[in-house]
């Protein structure tokens, strides 16, 4: 039986927040800067405990979230795999530096444990109100990757994925978790080294005088030279040329912006992660993410028991939006149900991709409570 193999791996009974730390450490994270905020604080607390015991690990509690993100980028530029964790209000503050990270292409991971908002909102209640902000929170056009996790095990796995994507594409990666997943304890299995892949940024292989730190490569992602490695590059939040120096030349500016987008666009297939459940013959497909995907899973089972052909498209990558997976369902004519704990942030994307082809219905729950399986089931029945 497969259980024998599984027993070799370490098992923990852990919070979603704790699982994030386990994933980060497996991915090679050695730097954490943060500021306490409910409901993400456990991530920071466990990091404070574990990082000094990790080879080269460094942890710092900064004076606010702006500073945390600044320190994270600084550490990233100095060659570390770095992360921070926060929640709504702190995420708002971080936007300034998330833009900077996009601009200088500094790999970093930001975990946002979503709670009710806007403003201080509902500090201890779940919501999914930061989805569009994760995509468009910082000013200016920018590419970014937004992931989500729905179970405690996924918190671990998606944190590894987040680090891998950020290192591979030199882009900040935002992992959205909601309060429910963050504060649920479940058994998780720590994968052994064979079970997962770790990606680290590509270092330049040419001598410093030939190196153009922001030049497009065949991979679309320029190699990255850490501070102090002899390359003495200039990093700036101003729009820059391939050498890294500020430019206002229209041709250089345009090329720069296009390159930033291209490096994500040309790797959609790698970045866009979804999971399908019972969708093959589904007449009603639920599109869900985060803890709501768990409720939807049970609701689909219950609907099937009642003879309704329901299915689930579970979005693990939220941005770039999994267009192809959704189109596969809408082309076949499946009606779409989008339950989310916000006023319709992913359903906007769903409707945009659907372009009126099939019926799209939404469940928008904003009372600080999780969407229950029975609520989804009722709506499936009404489609």
């Amino acid at each position, binding site marked *: 039986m497969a259980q024998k193999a599984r027993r070799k791996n370490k*098992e923990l009974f852990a919070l979603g927040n704790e699982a994030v730390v386990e994933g980060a450490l497996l991915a090679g994270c050695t730097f954490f800067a943060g500021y306490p905020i409910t*409901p993400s604080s456990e991530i920071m607390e466990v990091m404070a405990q574990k990082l000094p015991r990790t080879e080269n690990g460094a942890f710092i509690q900064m004076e606010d979230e702006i500073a945390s993100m600044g320190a994270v980028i600084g550490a990233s530029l100095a060659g570390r795999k770095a992360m921070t964790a926060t929640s709504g209000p702190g995420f708002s503050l971080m936007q300034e530096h998330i833009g900077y990270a996009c601009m200088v292409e500094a790999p970093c991971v930001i975990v946002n444990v979503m709670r009710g908002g806007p403003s201080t909102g509902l*500090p201890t209640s779940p919501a999914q109100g930061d989805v569009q902000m994760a995509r468009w929170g910082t000013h200016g056009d920018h590419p970014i990757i937004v992931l989500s996790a729905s179970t405690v095990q996924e918190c671990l796995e998606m944190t590894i994925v987040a680090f891998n994507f950020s290192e591979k594409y030199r882009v900040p990666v935002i992992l959205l978790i909601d*309060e*429910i997943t963050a504060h649920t*304890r*479940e058994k998780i299995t720590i994968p052994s080294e064979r079970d997962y892949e770790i990606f680290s940024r590509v270092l330049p292989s040419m001598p410093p005088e030939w190196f153009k730190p922001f030049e497009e490569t065949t991979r679309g992602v320029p190699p990255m030279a850490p501070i102090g490695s002899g390359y003495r590059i200039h990093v700036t939040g101003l729009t820059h040329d391939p050498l890294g120096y500020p430019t206002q030349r229209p041709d250089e500016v345009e090329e720069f912006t296009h390159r930033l987008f291209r490096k994500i666009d040309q790797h959609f297939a790698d970045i866009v992660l979804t999971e399908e459940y019972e969708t093959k013959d589904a007449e009603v497909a639920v599109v869900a993410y985060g803890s709501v995907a768990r409720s939807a899973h*049970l609701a689909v089972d219950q609907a099937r028991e009642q003879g309704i052909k329901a299915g689930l498209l579970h979005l693990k990558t939220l941005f770039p939006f999994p267009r192809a997976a959704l189109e596969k369902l809408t082309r076949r004519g499946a009606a779409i149900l989008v339950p989310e704990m916000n006023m319709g942030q992913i359903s906007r994307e769903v409707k945009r991709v659907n372009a009126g082809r099939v019926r799209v219905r939404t469940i928008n729950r904003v009372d600080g409570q999780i969407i229950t*399986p029975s609520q989804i089931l009722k709506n499936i029945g009404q489609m």
Partner: protein
Amino acid sequence: MNANSHELNRFELRLSGLGGQGIITLGKLLGYGLAIHHGYYVTQTQSYGPEARGGSSRADLVISSNPISYPKTENVDLLVALSQEACNEYYGVLKPNGVLVIDTVMVTQTPTNRFLGAEFTNYAKDKMGNPLTLNTIVLGAITHLLPFAQPRLMRKALEENMPAKILELNKKAFNLGQREAKKRFGEAPEIWKKAAEYAEEEVIEALE
């Protein structure tokens, strides 16, 4: 999965009471034991923030042989209420065939006459000489109550999670809880059978 464990499909359990009674620790221990040593799928959630600071405390567990989709409790199979307030508030989520366990020192007005009661608080104070052992005593009692829980494995969970200094005391408290539960509540399979029968009778009565 442990060889002699029961096949379970979503068993829901709520532990409730006052802050300071060790409810959250109890939930974590119970969840740890069932997940790591019994091999069940377990999700454990709890009350947070102002809710938790208001004096009440709550930990919920869902236990299943299969992966758990919805992690929260909807209809509770076993409700443990260690305060009057908790008992009043959560009795409504107990399934008709569910079992209610109360601390008879703390809960004086029960919403039903079908309950299992024991003076857990007094056991901790008088028999163990330490009020802080309350939650471990309750853990012992719950372990006895759950037909799929094995005392041996729960003790292992205790050993792995308790600081060495207080381990012996807590092992004693666990045994005490188990013993008292056996004495007062009877054997577990009987309790659950009775609860199921009762619920059925109620349905029939309602139909008549």
